[in-house]
């Protein structure tokens, strides 16, 4: 029983972790808490839903399931399209809204508020276009496979977990080993100084948006495959995402992933031992505990 709880927690935690990486990147580099990030997840899921639907209609062959998974090739293709489209959406919002406020030298808290308005707008836009009816990528039912110690998981769930691990390692390597990654870290340390050192700050900021939005799209699609697609799916994940980003330490990619897993596991344990109705409170408790005990997070550096 406990093994099953742990497996469930790890799977939903990997989703939270992926979303939290996007938050932690935009937070540390653009220096504001982006309340619209959760809704980027939702848009990623709906983009993929629309593209997969279109692909499936015109090329029915793509709908046939790949191996043990519940979806056909239309989904991976739609995922790639969705990463691109969500990235474009993020750049668009930045151009219309955040870039203008930045250019005006607005305080970080104004950006937070603008993000809050943007979140409201794009979330309700989704509800307007797709209505609040839950959607699914497939209606195929999957049989869970036995894992260790009596725990079971579906092939889809295991694939998501694997994909999350690969993506985290990839993002970490990009940030630490490539020129673009070094530029991002430099901008996060000191924007003015990075600009003086010849780094194209505007380009780096665009890169951060695309990165964060792309990861959000993956997390959204994953959540759509494993649970369902709803306009509020990202909004409901926002608090766990923030809790994970702060618990991991703002700016730390491995930290966000580890913290995402911790949040996922705590939620699963809460559902098991306290009751599913209190699940949404877990993230808040983690947030309060971390702000009291170690505000810089597990892997973060002290602000001073």
């Amino acid at each position, binding site marked *: 029983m406990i093994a099953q709880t742990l497996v469930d927690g790890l799977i939903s935690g990997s989703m939270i972790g992926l979303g939290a990486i996007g938050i932690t990147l935009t937070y540390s580099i653009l220096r504001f808490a982006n309340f619209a990030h959760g809704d980027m997840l939702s848009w990623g899921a709906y983009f993929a839903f629309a593209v997969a639907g279109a692909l499936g209609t015109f090329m029915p062959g793509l709908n046939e399931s790949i191996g043990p998974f519940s979806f056909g090739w239309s989904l991976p293709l739609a995922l790639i399209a969705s990463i691109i489209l969500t990235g474009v959406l993020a750049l668009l919002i930045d151009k219309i809204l955040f870039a203008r406020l930045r250019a005006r030298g607005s305080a970080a808290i104004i950006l937070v508020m603008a993000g809050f308005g943007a979140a409201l707008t794009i979330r309700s836009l989704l509800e*307007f276009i797709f209505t609040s009816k839950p959607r699914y990528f497939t209606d195929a039912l999957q049989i869970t496979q036995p894992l260790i110690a009596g725990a079971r998981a579906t092939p889809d769930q295991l694939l998501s977990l694997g994909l999350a691990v690969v993506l985290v390692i990839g993002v970490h390597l990009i940030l630490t080993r490539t020129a673009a990654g070094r530029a991002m870290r430099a901008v996060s340390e000191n924007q003015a100084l990075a600009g003086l050192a010849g780094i194209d700050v505007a380009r780096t900021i665009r890169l951060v948006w695309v990165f964060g939005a792309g990861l959000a799209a993956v997390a959204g699609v994953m959540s759509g495959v494993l649970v369902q697609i709803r306009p509020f799916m990202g909004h409901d994940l926002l608090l766990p995402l923030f809790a994970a980003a702060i618990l991991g330490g703002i700016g730390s990619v491995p930290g966000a992933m580890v913290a995402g897993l911790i949040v996922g596991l705590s939620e699963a344990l809460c559902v098991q031992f306290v009751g599913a109705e209190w699940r949404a409170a877990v993230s808040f408790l983690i947030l309060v505990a971390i702000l009291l005990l170690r505000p810089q997070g597990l892997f973060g550096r002290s602000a001073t």
Partner: protein
Amino acid sequence: MIELISYGAFFLTLALTYAMMCLGLNVQWGQTGLFNVGIAGFVAIGAYVSALLTTPDDPARFGGLGLPIAVGWIAAAIASAIASGLLGWLTIRLRADYLAIATFGFAVVVQLAALNLQSLTGGPFGIGFIPRPFAELAPNPLLFGLVNLAVLGVVTLAVYAALEHLMRSPWGRVLRAIRENEQAATALGKQAMRFRLQAFGVGGAIMGLGGAMQGHFIGFISPENYVPMLTFQVWAMLIVGGSGNNRGAILGAVLVWAIWAASGAVISAFVPPDQQARAAALKIVMIGVGICAVLLLRPRGILGESRTVSRHIEKAKP
């Protein structure tokens, strides 16, 4: 004609309860620059505390102490002040936007508690039979509505006058100084943290009072009244009206509430029933775009903040 006056009184009374929440937010954001995304949580605490203290005894849940309405309102303000004080103490000393994240989570938890603690809050069924002021006048709807409006108007006016006085007091000027330049204020010996906490607590108390008044005016509260949508509405009201200006807060509340109610009426009259949920979503898009547009195009709102709030400077002017 009588119906029109009745509706006008009803509309204005409800708008004034929002104006009260908006005044609370203005102390936090408009004057001090503290970003609170959990307005719904503080409003809910006020509404529930007052309801528990003033409703008649109910065997299905705790409370129903049957105390006078005034006691409930005062307790509501105190309870919300304590809650915002605790949350503020936890986060204000850290990064500015941690407060935003924490208040967001706080509102989620308050709503969850209202929904799940059935023996205390009545759970999803909410709390009914909340006493209305001057209930003995209820047989005469017009008079009853006008008296209710008068009660809320007097309380709102009193809070407005108190806030105007506070804003012009040394305390209010320190808040503005901290918002504009914390280092300079600290160098003058002002403890920024303490002032911020006080402002956050005062704002929370006013929001709690607003929630209690709304509960007593409608007579029924339930968890679904305190969803994040409420927070968005109050924000839109303050931004449109003009943050930093108490009259702007009240004007914004009445204006945005009028637009909201009117668009709701238009939707229910002209949109076919199966498309109404969609049209309602578009209404929310309107609020979101409105917030962003005001931030971009007219950050001051309709009535901006006045540049000087010191009596002494105003008096010195010719």
